[in-house]
């Protein structure tokens, strides 16, 4: 049906978007690669020297890199585990006949719409403050010693904040998937005398496999670059205890002004993200065929 004319038009409508995204992807990336081969300090402009792979050697052997890689993995892994392990029962619960379900759903989804700087500061001060925070008061109420969250377990404190922000996302996606589950199938299983547990294991869980994968991949992409929550609460500390890769690169670029090694680190982050992206793109692509 499409005439030659419409094809040309279609292409010209597509070009601006493709062109912009191409420039957006290629120019900064090319510059990052270029900078990563230079010894380049913002404090001493004009003294750039080509150093080959020196920056990569420096970045990858820096103890801070290993620490931040570890922190990144712990952060991503723990938040994923928390949001999915809590998200599944929560989604199952919201899928039940609940009086006022819409209102409950509004309460559950709310944290996702709170900007990261707000949630981090509210948690840090109002809830987790070692003396005047609500958690400290609750602890003393039960005769426990209040935890000094950001000194004793700083990474765990950050994990809790980030998990609170992402739990709604996991729950909402799993709930959406549950609601598309065929009720008849479940009813048939119940008629046949299947217990609630085996219905869950043999019918519900397999149905959730794909949405869970999607949640894992999408959360991972965002969680790999958690920044604001660390920026406003701990500044990466104490020591390097809450420095993740994103924060380490930020610190090298805009606190130590070391453009060369920050660029090398940036490329490392791109490679890590690409490994995850590879799987996500494949899953979404398969969906596109259908």
């Amino acid at each position, binding site marked *: 049906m499409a005439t030659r004319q419409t*094809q040309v038009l279609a292409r010209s409508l597509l070009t601006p978007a493709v062109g912009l995204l191409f420039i957006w992807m290629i120019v900064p990336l090319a510059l990052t690669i270029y900078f990563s081969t230079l010894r380049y300090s913002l404090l001493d402009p004009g003294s750039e020297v080509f150093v080959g792979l020196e920056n990569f050697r420096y970045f990858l052997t820096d103890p801070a890199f290993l620490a931040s890689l570890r922190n990144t993995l712990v952060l991503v892994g723990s938040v994923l585990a928390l949001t999915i392990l809590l998200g599944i029962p929560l989604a199952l619960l919201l899928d039940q006949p*609940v009086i006022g379900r819409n209102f409950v759903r509004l309460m559950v989804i709310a944290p996702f719409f709170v900007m990261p700087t707000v949630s981090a500061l509210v948690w840090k*001060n109002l809830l987790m403050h070692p003396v005047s925070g609500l958690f400290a008061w609750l602890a003393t109420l039960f005769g426990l010693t209040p935890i000094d969250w950001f000194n004793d377990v700083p990474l765990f404190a950050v994990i809790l904040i980030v998990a609170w922000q992402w739990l709604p996302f996991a729950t909402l996606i799993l709930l959406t998937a549950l609601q598309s589950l065929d009720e008849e199938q479940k009813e048939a299983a119940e008629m046949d005398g299947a217990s609630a547990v085996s219905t869950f294991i043999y019918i519900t869980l397999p149905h959730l496999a794909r949405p869970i994968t999607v949640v894992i991949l*999408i959360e991972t992409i965002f969680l790999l670059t958690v920044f604001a929550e660390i*920026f406003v609460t701990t500044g990466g500390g104490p020591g390097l205890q809450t420095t993740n890769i994103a924060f380490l690169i930020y610190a090298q*670029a805009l606190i130590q002004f070391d453009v060369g090694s920050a660029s090398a680190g940036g490329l490392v982050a791109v490679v890590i993200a690409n490994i995850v992206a590879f799987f996500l793109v494949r899953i979404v692509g398969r*969906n596109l065929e259908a």
Partner: protein
Amino acid sequence: MARMATTRRVAISTVAAWLFGFLIFFPILWMVLASFKTELEAFAIPPSFLFFHWTTENYATVQERSDYFHHALNSIIIAGGSTVIALLIAIPAAWSMAFSPTKRTKDILLWMLSTKMMPPVGVLVPIYLIYKSFGLLDSRTGLVFILCLGNLPIVIWMLFTYFKEIPRDILEAARMDGATIGRELVYVLTPMAIPGLASTMLLNLILAWNEAFWTLNLSTSYAAPLTTFIASYSSPEGLFWAKLSAASTLAIAPILVLGWFSQKQLVRGLTFGAVK
């Protein structure tokens, strides 16, 4: 008998759901309550939950001392501007891919998705340096531009999945009747696409409003939107909890309301159509 069991089940799940919902929502509620306390009460142990001296003076102070509306206006300009521009670029692109697909369309879509996977920190250095040399640091223009590009893939994807759902028969009928592409776009496609457009706009506004990597790194004072403004409360010299809470409540209220309206679109937009 069966009915009794059902009633009990509803009662149990209702209580459980309200309990968990309340727990998850509690930090936000607590913040809103603190915003109506005096600084002394916000800090007090044991805390007072409802029976404190309610006051709105924090809201006035936040505006007086730190020019809250200036930053709110920045947020509106940056989130709104980047959304409008992204839509203007994305609508033709998504329209073209949805209605005149070629064999490369799928690859283009997936490639666009992959640009969203690039961690912003990977290009922080060059963007910062480019912005510095063009004088775009701490400028609204700079932030509009970067947030627009950052969200463009999501906008195109969402529009594409919505446009795909418009029945093609209608378009063919219009073409048979001799409608030109321009007319087809204005009279046939646009009215059918408005719900999809609205949800895409809503989701993008939310994402741009809450974006906190580029805004924190590329703005300091003049162009600082609310994300950066709130971050300034993290400095340890003044622990003004009530004022922090008031500023935070104002910063999240509009987007919370928008967000509640767009739950369904959220799932669709953020999973690139993989979960509907």
